[in-house]
């Protein structure tokens, strides 16, 4: 069984692999990096280090990017490969167990960065592989 954490940004719901989520913090101010992309607009402090802020809202089908000074109600700290990233969200629900056969390739193209899709409480929801997303973003920056 996979454990998925449903999170909300505006009217978008995403599901993140709960095993990669290290902490769910409250609202955290973040520092914008001049000239940074809307997908990774800045950094925030976590356990004595600066970690990047990844804005899923900026990548959503109907973009709802963070604006400078905006702080969302929850901040996920997610382990993504060799690094940790912060994902500000408006809400996070209790993690749900989903059988692997209920997780499939994106069919409804809910979000362009969705690695998979499933249904939670009968509602299609995009599953985000944060580590893969980070690798994609790194590749885009280099390119």
């Amino acid at each position, binding site marked *: 069984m996979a454990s998925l954490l449903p999170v909300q940004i505006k009217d978008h719901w995403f599901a993140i692999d709960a095993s990669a989520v290290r902490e769910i913090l409250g609202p955290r101010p973040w*520092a*914008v*990096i*001049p*000239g*940074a*992309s809307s997908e*990774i607009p800045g*950094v*925030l*402090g976590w356990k*004595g*280090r*600066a*970690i*990047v802020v990844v804005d899923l809202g900026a990548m959503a089908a109907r973009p709802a990017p963070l604006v*400078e000074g905006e702080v969302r109600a929850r901040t996920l700290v997610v382990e993504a490969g060799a*690094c940790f*990233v912060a994902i500000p969200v408006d809400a996070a629900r209790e993690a749900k167990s989903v059988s692997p056969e209920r997780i499939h390739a994106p069919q409804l193209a809910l979000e362009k960065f969705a690695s998979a899709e499933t249904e939670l409480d009968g509602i299609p929801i995009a599953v985000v592989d944060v580590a893969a997303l*980070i690798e994609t*973003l*790194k590749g*885009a*920056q280099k390119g």
Partner: protein
Amino acid sequence: MNALAGTFLIIPARGWSLALPASAVRRVLSEHEWPEEAPAPADLDETLGVEPDVGATPRRVLVLGDSSGEVAVRVRGALSMREVDPGRIWPLPIGLLGGRTAGFLEGIVLEDGAKPVFVIDARRVTERRRSGG
């Protein structure tokens, strides 16, 4: 990040401050002290791709130096010196950050209620100025 700790010249900018290692700053001149016959220094704001504080004055010329020589950059705003304790400067995950400015940043000081302070890699600034960028 002890290697970064030390004394910094703090330059105000819009929404944050910039910190240049004082060891890289050879001289601080008023703009009118800069020789008229010398090429005009480039704005540090433009080099880094950041916005200055609106209407910030006065303007100063910083002469930055290293073993390869000196370059001059123009800055604006009220400059100050600040000692930063070891461990207060956090390295930035530069590999994950895009954009022109990130390439010049070495670390950040984040303190509750205060503007972020970005530590500038003076070596990259001098290299960019020497290359005419």
